[in-house]
């Protein structure tokens, strides 16, 4: 009797035909049943409002008219928005607000995390203090900052006067040039602890042996950071920046409470503007059209967020 060595010579079996999608769905029908309640809830609380908003964006809702008597105007709301001066001003504000808040909060948080990663006396206390801006009520914080910026009684202005940096209390938030930077400062103050916590968590995962290896290889503290820590944190950094960007793009409390978008729209960003259009001026159709545009932008950011997350997973899985 001869024994064949392995299956090398045997003809390869043809793969069975791939089952159709419907058949696959039918075989895993129980799985669909399990997620059904969640899908139903999502349809009610997400899909329907999205549909309704899109629908509403094609209608005009003059004040005095009931919402059910809205008038169909096609894409007029969209053309009105895109051709209005306020739209471009608010868009520019939103970009400045989002980019500046995100990047500066991230850099500050990163630096704070690196500083707190070292072992020193009082580290735990300092860490707790630095987290406070993030955990206290945003409404309360906005009111406090509003008073600190006050043109007559604000402590910031008084300190500046006493230091001799200026003669008169500066008008931080009633001035079209300084209002947005002033609000961005508040926002950064509120958000950098989030970046700090994320980066601190990331720092825990930097392999000690890699840092030691770099030390033996002759790398200085800065080189160890640049060659080991920084690349190791690239994933968590991307996620942090994206989360901050989405949060800033959608932020409402700080600008709304502090200035309400004024003076003369100088601190309006999309969200506060939409809110004012809808609930202040009852221009539901225009507000809905704005919301649809916002939805598209946020979904694109969300797409990059998911891609960054899955990219990290792939990296860890290896080839």
């Amino acid at each position: 009797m001869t024994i064949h060595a392995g299956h090398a010579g045997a003809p390869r079996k043809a793969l069975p035909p791939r089952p159709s999608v419907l058949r696959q769905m039918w075989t895993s029908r129980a799985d669909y049943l399990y997620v059904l309640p969640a899908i139903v809830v999502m349809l009610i609380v997400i899909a329907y409002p999205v549909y309704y908003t899109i629908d509403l964006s094609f209608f005009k809702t003059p004040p005095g008219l009931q919402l059910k008597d809205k008038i169909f105007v096609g894409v007029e709301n969209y053309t009105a928005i895109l051709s209005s001066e306020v739209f471009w001003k608010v868009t520019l504000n939103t970009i400045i607000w989002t980019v500046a808040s995100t990047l500066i909060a991230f850099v500050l948080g990163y630096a704070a995390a690196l500083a707190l990663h070292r072992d020193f006396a009082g580290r735990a206390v300092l860490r707790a203090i630095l987290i406070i801006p993030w955990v206290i009520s945003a409404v309360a914080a906005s009111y406090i900052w509003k008073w600190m910026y006050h043109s007559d009684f604000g402590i910031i202005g008084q300190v500046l006067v006493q230091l001799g940096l200026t003669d008169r209390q500066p008008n931080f938030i009633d001035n079209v040039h300084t209002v947005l930077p002033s609000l961005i400062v508040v926002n950064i103050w509120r958000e950098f602890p989030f970046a700090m916590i994320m980066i601190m968590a990331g720092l825990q995962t930097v392999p000690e042996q890699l840092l030691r290896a770099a030390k033996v290889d002759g790398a200085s503290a800065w080189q160890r950071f640049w060659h080991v820590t920084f690349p190791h944190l690239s994933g968590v950094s991307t996620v942090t920046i994206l989360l901050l960007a989405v949060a800033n793009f959608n932020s409402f409390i700080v600008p709304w409470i502090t200035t309400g978008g004024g003076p003369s729209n100088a601190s309006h960003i999309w969200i506060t503007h939409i809110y004012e259009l809808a609930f202040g001026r009852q221009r539901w159709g225009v507000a809905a059209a704005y919301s649809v545009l916002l939805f598209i932008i946020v979904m694109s950011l969300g797409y990059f967020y998911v891609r960054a997350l899955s990219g990290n997973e792939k990296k860890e899985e290896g080839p």
Partner: protein
Amino acid sequence: MAQVVLKDLVKTYGSIYAAKDVSLTVNDGEFVALVGPSGCGKTTTLNLVAGLIPITSGDITIGNRIVNDLDPKDRDIAMVFQNYALYPNKTVFQNLAFPLQMRKLPKSEIETKVKDAAKVLDITHLLERKPRELSGGQQQRVALGRALVRDPAVFLMDEPLSNLDAKLRVQMRSEIKRFHQDLNATIIYVTHDQLEAVTMADKMAVMNGGLLQQYDTPANVFANPVNMFVASFIGSPAMSLVPLQATTVDGRTSLTSSEGWVLPLSDANARKVAAASSHKIVLGARHSTIKLHKSAVDGAVPARVYTVEPTGDITFVQAFLAGAILNISLPPTAQVAPDEMVWLEFDQDRIHLFDGETEMALRAS
């Protein structure tokens, strides 16, 4: 290459000694294994030599320099880590080049050195890959390469094989041994696997509880363990240790057990027992030196079989004797069943005797 001398090295964390009065000399070109169980101080000792943790007291000399206060990079050492510690975002080439770049060598020289090291370790074809695209063995070679390019005075290796699977470990074991022979490198190698230490090292330093227990060639450590710890740690399966009582009747010294049997000792062994601090004696015997009989024989003691483990070319039998478990190796043809009564005969020239109080090996006075 250079000599490494540790003198009364101490490392404490609070009141805990991680390493206590460790003194040993690693000669130029020697391969020394630091071996011991987890927490014995071996990795601490290696990190002290590397300069990754500060010493509490003592001296470390590499070459002719005392390096106590030098940074790791100034000690002329290279280190290979347990999980290779390759820079994941750099290619193999960049990983090998990194220590040279840190020394600001010219680009052309870096390239030559990296290529030479890659050739020695047979990783030239991997130079453009990232570490995650490599197998465990290849990563290990890259880690060795990164140590090799620096042409250090001493190679420090911290359990470099423990992340590999059993088969690859055996293969890399011989590759590292070959690496040592070809380069005539001074290597300090930390492992918890006594088999690695025995097979690879010129000398082994057995550590326990922060203390250096014995520092000698593997053959000597195996043949003459200084205490019960070394005896039970080195050798696989471990040396069996049986606690007994020494009695002397009419000038004849014997060991008696709580089970009632008596094992008469040879004159040489009797002299060793006479040096003990008390009557408590621990009898040590390696599996291959114990004879197993199926019926009572003169000079043999009764035991009960616990388990039988055939491994192919050797069958290991574990047997109860005076409250201890003994390992005995038998030819595969041996027919023994669990719970069977057997009689064990010890080779008087090859047994080890330990002081039951101090746990130190007894030597003839």
